[in-house]
């Protein structure tokens, strides 16, 4: 909980200080945010890690499991993002 609060506060500090543009909202369509979020939540828990857990901590500790997970999710995400783009869905 204090991690989540800290992350929000840290990003807020950046937005109020160094950010050249200030507050910002995404233009990515909400159905993409909702559907993507559902899969990200399910997948993170099933694979015991995400871009932070497997990507940063896992790679840093040279965990074989994490390195494989990162290769898999990054490859799948690149393929998915390109399929979405090819379907003409933007943003």
């Amino acid at each position: 909980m204090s991690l989540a609060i800290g992350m929000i506060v840290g990003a807020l500090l950046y937005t109020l200080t160094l950010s050249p543009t200030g507050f910002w909202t995404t233009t990515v369509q909400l159905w993409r945010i909702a559907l993507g979020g559902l899969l990200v939540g399910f997948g993170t828990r099933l694979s015991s890690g995400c871009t932070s857990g497997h990507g940063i901590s896992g790679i840093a500790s040279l965990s074989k499991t994490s390195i494989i997970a990162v290769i898999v999710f990054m490859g799948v995400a690149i393929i998915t993002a390109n399929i979405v783009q090819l379907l003409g869905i933007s943003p």
Partner: protein
Amino acid sequence: MNKTNLIVLFGGILFGFGLAYSGMTKQEIVLSFLQLKDLGLIFVLGGAALVTAVAINVLAKFLKKPAFGKQYKPRTRILSWSTIVGAIIFGVGWGISGQCPGSAMASLGTGNYPILIGIAAMFIGAYLRGLLDS
């Protein structure tokens, strides 16, 4: 708030600040990486992993025990089909939306209120995963 929570809060502030500074709180920037148009993300992820690797593998050798804990404990993750299938599902979600748990939380701090829908969806997704076990 105890000492451990305070240091975690501080770490979170640094992490959130860095994610916002590097643009990773913007789903558009993450998606442009995944479409291979802007390779910034790989440097952010690689840079963060490198700094963390120094902390885990070098700094930890100089300290007999963690500054805010009793002893070092490795977090072992056993490779299983769950890891692979979970990573595939995560990848599809990441590729559709350009958001992941950490960047979504930090994104809230940049004023990106629509991401609340994504965060709510992540909780539902994680909850549904939990239902499979029970």
